[in-house]
């Protein structure tokens, strides 16, 4: 699962055309735009019903801890026509996400997926293929596992038939109505971060020496986690950490001094009726794609959201929060560099030594800063 050198270099394009690192494909009405809107533009899942069909390739550039571009190709495109461009796209990206609507007949999707995999692997042998078995909120537990088993079986069989054995492919059950989409996306992104092993190591060391049970490094805007320590991960813990980030950011926004420079062009408001992303993405055809969003602020319920304009406004002190739960667990959040946040779970017995924990976390923060200066 190594990342090729070209990808590392191409990924650092802060300039006008950062190459897409992740491309999202799938048949139409599969859920690709909904996923992008919910994850990166803070749309409420229920509002995604109003999104129009995507007609042209759309790219969201996401600059926080990592230069991140998600390119969404519309499902209607008969991509064999656009094959030359597709090759260029595949060779410069690290992962291909294919979205399958699990509530629909997926035989066509699998055939489409198969031909795409062939082209992608030809263009870029190290590309990670990630299959999102999407819209599983409508299926029962047994059905989900059945669907996953079935799809996995079929896809791997077809690849074997064609003699493609070294394809890195994984399957995820996802839904925008719960946290599974965030978790799946976290795993996809983690495979693309060259610094992953270092981060995990740092977190392990931090946890061992500070009495922390579990630590995550989250990206605040999208709530995907970049790294975690080696202790076992369970989903309720992940969920409560994402909720904790939400409330910290919301409460901070309620009482924060408005430091934004007066009215720039890119201010966007989402009201309770959920304006879909017409103001955010601008699209052109195929190759030269340009859009921007920046690190959005998170919201709960249908509050107003505002996107901070680029470049990031100088903030005050780093944000942090602590919460004591009745079962003896303490949730602890500290803002880190580059839109990241460290979220830890500790036992209440560690509270008297909190000053030491904070001291250790400062070292961790310094390590992160160094990592991104060099990397």
């Amino acid at each position, binding site marked *: 699962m190594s990342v090729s050198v070209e990808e590392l270099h191409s990924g650092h394009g802060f300039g006008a055309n950062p190459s897409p690192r992740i491309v999202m494909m799938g048949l139409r009405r599969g859920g690709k735009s909904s996923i992008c809107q919910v994850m990166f533009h803070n749309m409420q899942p*229920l509002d995604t019903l109003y999104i129009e069909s995507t007609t042209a390739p759309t790219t969201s550039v996401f600059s926080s801890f990592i230069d991140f571009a998600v390119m969404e190709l519309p499902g209607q495109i008969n991509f064999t026509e656009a094959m030359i461009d597709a090759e260029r796209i595949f060779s410069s990206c690290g992962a291909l996400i294919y979205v399958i609507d699990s509530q629909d007949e997926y035989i066509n999707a699998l055939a489409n997926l198969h031909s795409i995999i062939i082209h992608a692997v030809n263009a870029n042998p190290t590309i990670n293929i990630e299959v999102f078995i999407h819209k599983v909120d409508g299926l029962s537990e047994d059905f989900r596992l059945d669907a996953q088993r079935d799809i996995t079986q079929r896809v791997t069989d077809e690849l074997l038939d064609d003699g493609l054995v070294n394809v890195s492919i994984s399957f995820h059950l996802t839904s925008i109505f719960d946290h599974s989409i965030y978790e799946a996306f976290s795993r996809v992104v983690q495979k693309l971060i060259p610094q992953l092993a270092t981060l995990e190591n740092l977190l392990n060391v931090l946890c061992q020496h500070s009495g922390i049970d579990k630590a995550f490094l989250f990206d605040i805007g999208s709530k995907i986690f970049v790294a975690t320590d080696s202790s076992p991960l369970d989903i*309720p*813990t992940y*969920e*409560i950490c994402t*909720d*904790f980030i*939400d*409330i*910290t950011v*919301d*409460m*901070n926004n*309620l*009482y*924060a*001094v*408005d430091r934004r420079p007066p009215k720039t062009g890119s201010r966007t408001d989402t*009201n*309770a*009726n959920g304006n879909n992303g017409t103001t955010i993405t601008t699209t052109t055809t195929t190759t030269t794609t340009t859009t921007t969003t920046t690190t959005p602020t998170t919201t*709960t*319920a*249908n*509050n107003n959201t505002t996107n901070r304009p680029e470049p990031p406004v100088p*903030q*005050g*002190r780093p*944000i*942090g*929060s*602590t*919460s*004591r*739960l*009745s*079962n003896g*667990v303490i949730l602890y959040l500290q803002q880190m560099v580059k839109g990241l946040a460290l979220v830890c779970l500790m036992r209440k017995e560690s509270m008297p030594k909190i*000053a030491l924990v*904070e*001291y250790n976390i*400062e*070292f961790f923060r*310094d390590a992160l800063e160094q990592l991104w200066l060099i990397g």
Partner: protein
Amino acid sequence: MAGARRKLLLMGRSGSGKSSMRSIIFSNYSAFDTRRLGATIDVEHSHLRFLGNMTLNLWDCGGQDAYMDHYFSTQRDNIFRMVEALIFVFDVESKELRKDIETFVLCLRNLYEFSPSSKIFALVHKMDLVILEKRQDVYRALMKSLEDTSAMFSFQVQGFATTIWDESLYKAWSSIVCSLIPNVALFQKHLQTFADISEADEVILFEKTTFLVISHVTNPRSPGFRSDSTRFEKISNIIKQYKQSCSKLRAQFQSLSIRGTDSTSYLDTMTSNTMIMVIMSHKPDIRGSSNLPGGNDINGDGDESLADEAENNIILANIKIARKMFEKIEMMNPDDR
């Protein structure tokens, strides 16, 4: 000591949202969960202890015509006697607004006869279905006719525009319930004292289960960034959601402290029925000149985190001391002032 019992009538057309509101505020449903609620059969009674000395007796009256006819004929006595407050819900999308207003008038007439001192609240509900620009007008238009009709019976109606999809629901219900608390002025007075002593920018007192705002105090000398007048209900909404997430881990949160960019908020248990939130803004000039023994100060933040710790402990200590006073207020006989 007999607690105050407050009978609340929740009335409105069938499907207007009465049971949904009730389940969100009092039964911890999320807005999404309310779609599984069915029609209410006749009257549903809920008894809710609210603070130590008050029981809310909520009569959720099913709005279907058959039931409504009964309310105004055979069950008149039963329904309209000893009512403290009428909460009438208007569905903003209703096609028969005239009929809704007539029902409202019927209620007023009966209340005038059986409980002339009751308070009247009108909720203009499902406002999320109206376009943003039109909301103010729709609300004002309806309220005008309601105010006129209420005046006929010398009632003062108080109106709210609400929707289950944002925090406006909390604002409405906080106001309704607070108007029924027997000694709310006493809470306000002591909360003010607490705020003054702690030099806090803002202090808010919440009821523990529903997270409705009982009382709040703002320091007028705090910096002028308190521009969001809807922040109280937003906080209710935010914390309620956090409560629901914690319950997924089969735990409840006991305290929460958030060190933001410009201020720090502390949320802690006050009494067994209330929680208090104290917001202190950061005062950089004081911190900058501190001479605390920082020792090995890696990044110059040492002074600040020590001062943080001190502030944290002071607030917690203050809350502990104030606890006894607030417990006494809660248990007070509602007739004392």
